[in-house]
């Protein structure tokens, strides 16, 4: 399925990317294109490495093979200063919001402006209020992050992400755990910001209908491969059983409901160790060693 034809106007190009964690291959030679000015969604079941892909695009992780070009430059070949200069033009909305907990809403949004510009305080105030107004939270500027609901925290994080007027925003699961009103507000906001500010948006999500409602193009990932790609309509009409299972939320299908295990009856009838054994199974010890190495 990795046959998407590169376009001239791509802001991010992922080329033959392979990435592994330990022995598990997260991405296996995938290629993706993210077009400038569009909303592109990356969808797939939990654990397919969608967030990892955003961290690779942001230069926080390094691929095993392949390249990621952002705005025409290989992000993993950039020097520290060049990488940080490029990141100033990228915003990222984390799943948790990632607001700094010792600062108020106002200070959180002002933080990148204070760090990267020499603007006078009056102008910073104006800019922060404009960004907060855009996400509907100008009135919450004096609240602390622990006083915000999950949806409000994400909107503040969105205001912070657009503080430096970036060229693109990476959204990590923006709709997860939101009530219908917050979700509706976020869906509207992401689309509106993309249109009015001329941004490029990359959304990682498994909320099918909300994402499909605003995406111009969708990639569906599973088990390290691109299993489907196209406009939302093409994805919904896809003949692929994998894509259909994901889009329709079927519990079983090509992507199995059960994690791989040995035969159920055999497993029930042969107990391996006492439940409260102090010793961990050997596989667990191995994984712990790897985790620390």
């Amino acid at each position, binding site marked *: 399925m990795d046959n998407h034809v590169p376009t001239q106007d791509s802001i991010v190009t992922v080329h033959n990317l392979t990435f592994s964690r330990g022995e598990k291959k997260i991405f296996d030679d995938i290629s993706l294109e993210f077009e400038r000015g569009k909303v592109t969604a990356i969808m797939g079941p939990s654990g397919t490495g969608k967030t990892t892909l955003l*961290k690779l695009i*942001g230069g*926080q992780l390094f691929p095993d093979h392949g390249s990621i070009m952002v705005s025409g430059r290989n992000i993993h070949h950039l020097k520290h200063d060049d990488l*940080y*200069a490029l*990141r*100033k033009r*990228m*915003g*990222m909305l*984390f*799943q*948790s919001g*990632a*607001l*700094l*907990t010792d600062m108020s809403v106002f200070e959180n949004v002002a*933080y*990148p402006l204070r*760090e*990267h510009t020499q603007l006078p305080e009056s102008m910073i105030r104006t800019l922060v209020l404009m960004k907060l107004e855009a996400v509907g939270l100008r009135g919450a500027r004096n609240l602390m992050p622990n006083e915000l609901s999950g949806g409000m925290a994400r909107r503040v*994080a969105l205001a*912070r992400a657009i503080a430096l007027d970036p060229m693109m925003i990476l959204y990590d699961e923006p709709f997860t755990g939101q009530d219908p009103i917050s979700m509706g507000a976020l869906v509207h906001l992401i689309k509106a910001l993309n249109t009015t500010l001329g941004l490029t948006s990359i959304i990682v999500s498994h909320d099918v209908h909300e994402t499909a409602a605003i995406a111009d193009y969708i990639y569906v990932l599973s088990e390290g491969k691109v299993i489907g790609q196209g406009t939302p309509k093409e994805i919904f009409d896809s003949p692929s059983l994998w894509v259909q299972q994901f889009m329709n939320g079927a519990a079983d299908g090509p992507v199995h409901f059960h994690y791989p295990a040995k035969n159920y009856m055999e497993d029930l009838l042969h107990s391996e160790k006492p439940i409260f054994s102090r010793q961990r199974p*050997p596989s667990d*010890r191995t994984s712990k*060693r790897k*985790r*620390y*190495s």
Partner: protein
Amino acid sequence: MEFFQNLGASTRSSFTKLGRGSYFLVHLLAGISSVLVRPHLLLKQLHSVGVLSFLIISISGLFVGMVLGLQGFYILSRFGAEETLGVMVAASLVRELGPVVTALLFAGRAGSALTAEIGLMKATEQLSGMEMMAIDPIKRIISPRFLAGFLSMPLLAALFSCVGIIGGQLVGTGLLGVDDGAYWSQMQANLDFQGDIINGVIKSIVFGFVTSWIALFEGYDSIPTAEGVSRATTRTVVNSAFSILGLDFILTALMFGDN
């Protein structure tokens, strides 16, 4: 065979961690110059790491000094040398107990708090968020805390020793009848500025460096889960205690070996 495999794996992971810790140290030391440009970051941390430790250090110093006064008096009185109680209390505090006990208390109070704070910032993606805003978290978060810990330790150790000497005097002269003038004059006459006080200060500087490094690295290197942060906090206290006591032996052997 599995025993040797585990031994090899744990040795390898220890050295890997030491390498990561050293790299982290170089990075944070390089970030100190940016802290000097933003002194408000340092002042805020000096308050939370240093000033908020005043009470525990003062109270502990007072009791340690009082116990030294009691124990010292009972031993010295066997030899008819009660008048030298001031020297004994002050030398014990300035050379050993001041730097060592302060460092242990610092690791328990401020070190564990630093690890938990950095670990939770990692778990809640605040550090990743800063990186994606093109703000280096080592420069803005880690280096100010390191510098605050490094600067606070000698001052806290000095406070501990001073309060301890007063505690020793309260017990020695107030309770046990040692002459007040003898307590202070013997101390003045027999305590060497270079040999005792400066060496004690050097110890506390070394302990401040090591404890702050361990606390911050454990937080930064923690597994970003509740269990991971909890384990990292424990490791900070345990590793700091081992490092402080081990280094104390080495420094004492180097400083006071000829006496």
